């Protein structure tokens, strides 16, 4: 082993081309706040990597008549005025190999989890890339199950879709994303969680939960924490997307969570203001829309001729006081294929996930649902909408007609049934079974306050004794007459036991 290493070193030294070449250089005129202004470097390209004499590395961002604005990625504290810098001829890229799965890396692909270098032959994936064209894509048709009943039934997500998760702070946005990742176990989906400007303690907790549930076996975490330079927060989503593209090119399905793009926009604003780009609305630079649109457009479902892989994006946006009409939220809403809107009021009422079904939408819709789910969830949205309208009249219980009372009761049961604890995603056949019981009126005799208990015991019953019903749904993916007969039998059998 030692001889092989020595021979290899000797060969590399012998092959080493050390001839001096004339290179274009720049000189640092000013540096501070993670940005350096250089004179010279007349032929540097935009987004080209620049290396400083001190070893610091940056990216050329502002190309002006007589100076270049460079965003420093590492070693900012070592950059001094007057030192030289040279363009490397390389664009920013992240090294990726299959062994990156299960690892925690920073925005430049360097490992952060203390487990050594990432093994395998690494491919350099460009951080910035033109999104797949129209011809290379196919329409989204394959479900990405989140395991959350309310979402899979009412706001279904497909592989290749961009579904925004939006809401105020502490409404469960990250919880929805993490539950989705946990539910991808055994689904042949590579998950990438991009933490942008998050507290290190929060990221550590998330990694711990994912590891505890075996999710780190198929997940990559890209972290640019709150204590990292804004440049890394700005690049982290692009790095996550580049890692996703590596797997998509192999024909695999990828889920990327960007948590969150509000902090990403803040980081970009900070860098742009220090680079003295003209501020626009809310002091964001004029191209803040393009920063997000070019990122999210790289999520796609590729057709068979181009591998058939997909990247599904779950960007997260934090609103202030529920204002979805603010600048960044409206930008991202217009880019994505739907939004999951989480409300503080619902959260504090105990409705968790705190989904506002009225304001949430999936533009892909039932194309991303199996037929069985369509059959049981079809009327659920209407039932809930009617319930919301009639809820105000609930206080006049004794004065309402039977039909209205029935709608209100059904709505209350639906709201109760759609509640779900964190880290408890359900497989789609269990979701279908539970929603079948609701939609066919099998829960009408169960008191509203006992719905959660009913569900817990029903699922235990199905897992222990009702496997035939679950198997039938899993295999057929629709509620045919035969499957429905089996399922109905199980529901009635359980209801008798529950009533006793």
């Amino acid at each position, binding site marked *: 082993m030692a001889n092989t290493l020595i021979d290899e070193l000797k060969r590399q*030294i012998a092959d080493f081309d*050390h001839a001096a070449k*004339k*290179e*274009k*250089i*720049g000189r640092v*005129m000013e540096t501070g706040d993670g940005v350096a202004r250089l004179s010279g470097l007349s032929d540097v390209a935009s987004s080209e990597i620049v290396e400083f004499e001190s070893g610091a590395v940056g990216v050329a961002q502002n190309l*002006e008549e007589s100076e270049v604005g460079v965003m420093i990625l590492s070693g900012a504290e070592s950059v001094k005025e007057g030192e*030289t810098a040279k363009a490397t001829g390389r664009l920013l890229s992240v090294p990726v190999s299959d062994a990156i799965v299960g690892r925690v890396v920073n925005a430049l692909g360097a490992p952060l989890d203390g487990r050594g270098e990432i093994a395998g032959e690494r491919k350099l994936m460009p951080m910035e890339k033109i999104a797949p064209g129209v011809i290379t894509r196919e329409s989204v048709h394959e479900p990405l199950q989140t395991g959350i009943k309310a979402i899979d039934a009412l706001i279904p997500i497909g592989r290749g879709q961009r579904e925004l998760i939006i809401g105020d702070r502490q409404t469960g946005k990250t919880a929805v994303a993490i539950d989705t990742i946990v539910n991808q176990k055994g689904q042949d989906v590579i998950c990438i969680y991009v933490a942008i400007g998050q507290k290190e303690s929060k990221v550590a907790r998330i990694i711990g939960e994912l590891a505890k549930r075996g999710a780190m076996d198929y997940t990559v975490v890209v972290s640019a924490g709150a204590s990292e330079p804004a440049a890394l927060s700005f690049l982290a989503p692009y790095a996550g997307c580049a890692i996703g593209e590596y797997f998509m090119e192999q024909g695999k399905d990828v889920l990327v969570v960007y948590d969150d793009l509000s902090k990403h926009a803040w980081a970009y604003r900070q860098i742009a203001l220090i680079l003295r780009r003209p501020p626009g609305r809310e002091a964001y630079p004029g191209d803040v829309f393009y920063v997000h649109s070019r990122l999210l457009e790289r999520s796609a479902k590729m057709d068979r001729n181009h591998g058939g892989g997909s990247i599904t994006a779950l960007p997260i946006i934090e609103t202030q006081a529920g204002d979805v009409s603010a600048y960044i939220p409206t930008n991202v809403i217009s880019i994505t294929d739907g939004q999951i809107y989480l409300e503080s009021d619902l959260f504090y009422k105990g409705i968790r996930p705190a989904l506002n079904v009225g304001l949430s939408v999936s533009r892909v819709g039932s194309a991303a649902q199996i037929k069985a789910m369509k059959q049981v969830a079809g009327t659920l949205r209407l039932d809930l909408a009617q319930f919301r309208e009639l809820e105000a009249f609930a206080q006049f219980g004794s004065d309402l007609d039977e039909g209205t009372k029935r709608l209100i009761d059904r709505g209350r049961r639906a709201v109760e049934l759609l509640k779900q604890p964190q880290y408890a995603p359900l497989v789609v056949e269990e979701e279908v079974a539970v929603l079948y019981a609701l939609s066919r009126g099998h829960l009408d005799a169960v008191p509203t306050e006992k719905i959660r208990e009913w569900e817990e015991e029903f699922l235990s019953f199905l897992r222990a004794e009702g496997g035939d019903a679950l198997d039938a749904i899993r295999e057929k993916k629709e509620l045919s007459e035969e499957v429905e007969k089996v399922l109905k039998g199980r529901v009635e059998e359980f209801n008798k036991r529950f009533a006793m």
Partner: protein
Amino acid sequence: MRLTASQYAKALLALSAGAEDPKRVASSFLSYARKNRLTKKLPDILRIFEGLSEAKAGKLSLSIETARSADAAEREALGRLAEASFPGKKLLLRYVVNADLVGGVRMLSSDEMVDATAKRRLRELESRIKG
């Protein structure tokens, strides 16, 4: 309208071309700069102006850095090397000792560099071995 340092430097170059009294041009320009609050931009303006003047006169300021002090013969050899590396220019050479370079020589103009230092070779060899 805000002008860039480069535009001011070009204007100063045009003014100074064929000027009979360079001192008067300089003091007028400084007075203008003070009046229009350009004092912060002055270092940039002068740096660009110096580069433009030299380029116009076919000159080039070159800093030759070595890890240790060079004797007369070595300086002559370095001068010839500089002329070969930057042909067609009248070179204004400045010799600097920079022990940080470890060995070899580095020639720096305002926007070009020839780096034949041991430090660069060692760094490139390190990155090549690391992969």
